[in-house]
């Protein structure tokens, strides 16, 4: 690396570095907008931009598989889930003046201080370190798949179990506990009613129908 340090000038960026920097700026800007915008749905959309920018950064770092996974999972499903969450919790459309809580300034102080400290440490540590992107591609699908199914099979399978557990957990949490009409399937009176029929639901103690609706969609 010292040889690499000698061959690279600090202020003579390559094309990849310039591209990384520009995309990084866009990503950072989108992230900042995500956390400061007062329109909740916009925040989710800016999050898409941020996550997409990070995917591009992965590409620039020659980790193409990760980049596509990032696009698929984050942009494809996580953000959609978040949007559903916003809608299900009746998040206001448009500007909501109380999106930030009262300790905004304290949070800002902590964040800026952390940033300063970490940036200082990181730049101090990696001042003379360069990544060699010209060698063999590190994150091609083939390379990733090989290593994943050669060396990381066991954690991979464990992770699948974790995902299953999370799925079950989400279902259990979303269910309405203690509702006799709902537990045990749709046999009782509630089951005969059309899904989404709001009028009769008013005289029931706690409506079970909408919960099913949400589960079907989630």
């Amino acid at each position, binding site marked *: 690396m010292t040889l690499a340090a000698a061959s690279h000038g600090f202020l003579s960026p390559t094309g990849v570095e310039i591209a990384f920097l520009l995309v990084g700026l866009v990503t950072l800007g989108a992230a900042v907008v995500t956390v400061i915008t007062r329109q909740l749905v916009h925040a989710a959309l800016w999050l898409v931009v941020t996550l997409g920018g990070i995917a591009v950064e992965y590409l620039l770092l020659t980790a193409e598989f990760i980049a596509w996974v990032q696009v698929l999972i984050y942009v494809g499903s996580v953000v959609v889930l978040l949007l559903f969450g916003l809608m299900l919790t009746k998040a206001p459309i448009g500007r909501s003046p109380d999106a930030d809580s009262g300790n905004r300034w304290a949070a800002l*102080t*902590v964040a800026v*201080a952390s940033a300063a*400290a970490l940036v200082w440490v990181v730049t101090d540590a990696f001042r003379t370190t360069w990544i060699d992107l010209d060698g063999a591609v590190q994150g091609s699908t083939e390379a990733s798949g090989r290593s994943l199914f050669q060396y990381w099979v066991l954690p991979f399978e464990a992770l699948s179990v974790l995902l299953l557990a999370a799925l079950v957990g989400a279902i259990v949490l979303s269910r309405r506990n203690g509702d006799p009409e709902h537990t045990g399937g749709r046999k009782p009176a509630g089951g005969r009613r059309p899904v989404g029929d709001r009028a009769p639901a008013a005289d029931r103690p706690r409506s079970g129908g909408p919960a099913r609706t949400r589960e079907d969609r989630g």
Partner: protein
Amino acid sequence: MTTTTTAVLVPLLPFLGALAGLLLGRRAPGFVRPLAILPTLAAAALAVVVAVAQGGGAGAGKAPVDAATRLTPTGSVPIDLALHIDGFAALVAVLVAVVACCVQIYSTGYLRDDPRYPSYAALVSLFTAAMLLVVYSGDLMVLLVGWEIMGICSYFLVGHYWETEAARSASLKAFLVTKLGDVPFLFGIFALAADAGTFRITGILKTVAVGGLDHPTLIALLLLAGVAGKSAQFPLHTWLPDAMAGPTPVSALIHAATMVAAGVYFVARLLPVFAASAAAMVVLAAMAAVTMVGSGLAALAQDDIKRVLAYSTVGQLGYMTGALAVGDRGAAVFHLLSHGAFKALLFLAAGVVIHAAGTNSLAAMSRMRGLAGRIPDAYWTMTVALLALAAIPPFAGFFSKEAVLGAAEHASTGHATASGTLTAVPTAAGWTVLLAGLITAFLTAGYATRLWLLAFHGKGPETAPDHGKQPIVMNAVLWVLFVPTLALGLATPVLPDWFDGRSLTPTLTTSVLGTGVALVGALVTYGAWRHTTALAARVPLGAVAVAPDAAPADSEESAIATHAAAYGDNAGAPDPADPGRLLLGPLHRPAAVGFHLDAVYTALFVRPVRAGARLVRFLDREVVDAYVNGAGTASRWLGAAVRRAQTGNVQTYLGALLAGSLVLAVAVVLVATGTGA
């Protein structure tokens, strides 16, 4: 059984009785009375056996019994469990045990329904044991133990009727005033032991005989303070009249016959120590003179029958200390014995009178007809006892008092030496005691006559209330004590053998003088009474509690509790028919309140102590507590401040956590780079 074993049993039996009484008192009420009476009775019998075995004192050339076992090797002056029984100890022990027996028997009738009788009887037993220990002990530290146990028993027993305010304050006063004397007393004992190198009485007397005491005056004066407190001598006598708020049997035993005589007995034992200092003898004489005359005057003004007797006790104790001041301990102990008998009789009879009359006020009794007829036993025994008190021949008091006056007369001529020593008694002491003794004889006869006339010869519209027949045990005890009151004078020729061998026979001069002034005093009082008694019928006065079925103690308790309310004072009563008022004239008011000595004490001691207590209280509450409370308040404020941080907002917590971690991380980095560089 040797004399020593018998003598050890004498104090031990009442002590065990007291322990058993205290332990069994609640669980087995049936055992209380036997446990109270039988050990005391046995102790009395054993005391008589010891006295018979001893068979005489120094006067007969009998050596005293001395036995000792080392109790504690203290490193410097050892403490021994020692017996020292000479003629004085043997006879005084007999007196103590006999009077204690009488009082225990009397109490079974007097306090028959009292719920606290078990503890009362046990305390009386404990007191008896302590007094016998004092009498027999040959070691000053052991004597001091008995001395202090007596004090605490006195405190408890004076406060027996603790429901009444008077009894509570009287018990505290008795305790505090005697302790005021006991502290110098303790130092006196230490100083004496330091000079003599031993606590044993025999060793001390040996040292004194060779003039080995370095500070005789200091030691004698320190010891005198304790003696004055215990024996109620001026100026520490004020507790004794107030102590009459206790039950009458207690007054008879502790505050007339025995405990108050302990001081006299103590001086008698250590008389050579006091005689080694002429100043101490003069102080003793002055103390005795002031006590005698002052108490005689005060007794004339008292309204409570027991307070009259209490002041009379103070005066008679003054006679005894007077006898000691002129160096004749034989006369002092002789008067102690006869006084113990007749004063115990007077108190016990007064208990009967109070019960029968339903009041303790002489003013109320003087408006009652026929009291003497209701209680003939008490009337006759009390009459004789009062004659003995007034030193009318041929009763016991006459002989003992004439012995004292004879000794004083002997000393005033400058020929006397203190008993057991060759030290000359100061002439001044002799004159002081002689003059004061004669004045007191006049006063004694006066208040004895007044008491007798007011109590038994009341003239008024009402007859005495009928309380039924007095308990047989109470009357029987009166007659038991009547015997020595009547006949102790017969022992006058024998007693010198038990004492120092000095003759106790009355001399002609003092007999004529003493009896003369006594008769004059009685006649003057009678005249005054004739003059004033007509007023009694015109001025109704008095409150009488009539409760025929109540125990005698109940009548007394209600009488004590109501006296201040009915007559405005615990001591006097606004009675124009009182001959004492006529005799004393302007002195009556000061005499009734004990010559304002209590007020002097209030100004000199009570107020400064209270001010000091307030200061300490202020320091404790405002200064010390300020720090203590400040610690608590500061913690609470800190807690309130910290609690404000607990908002329940998770983001706040998280922010604080992260900020803290950041600070730590930066610190670690700085330290790491600092050490690295």
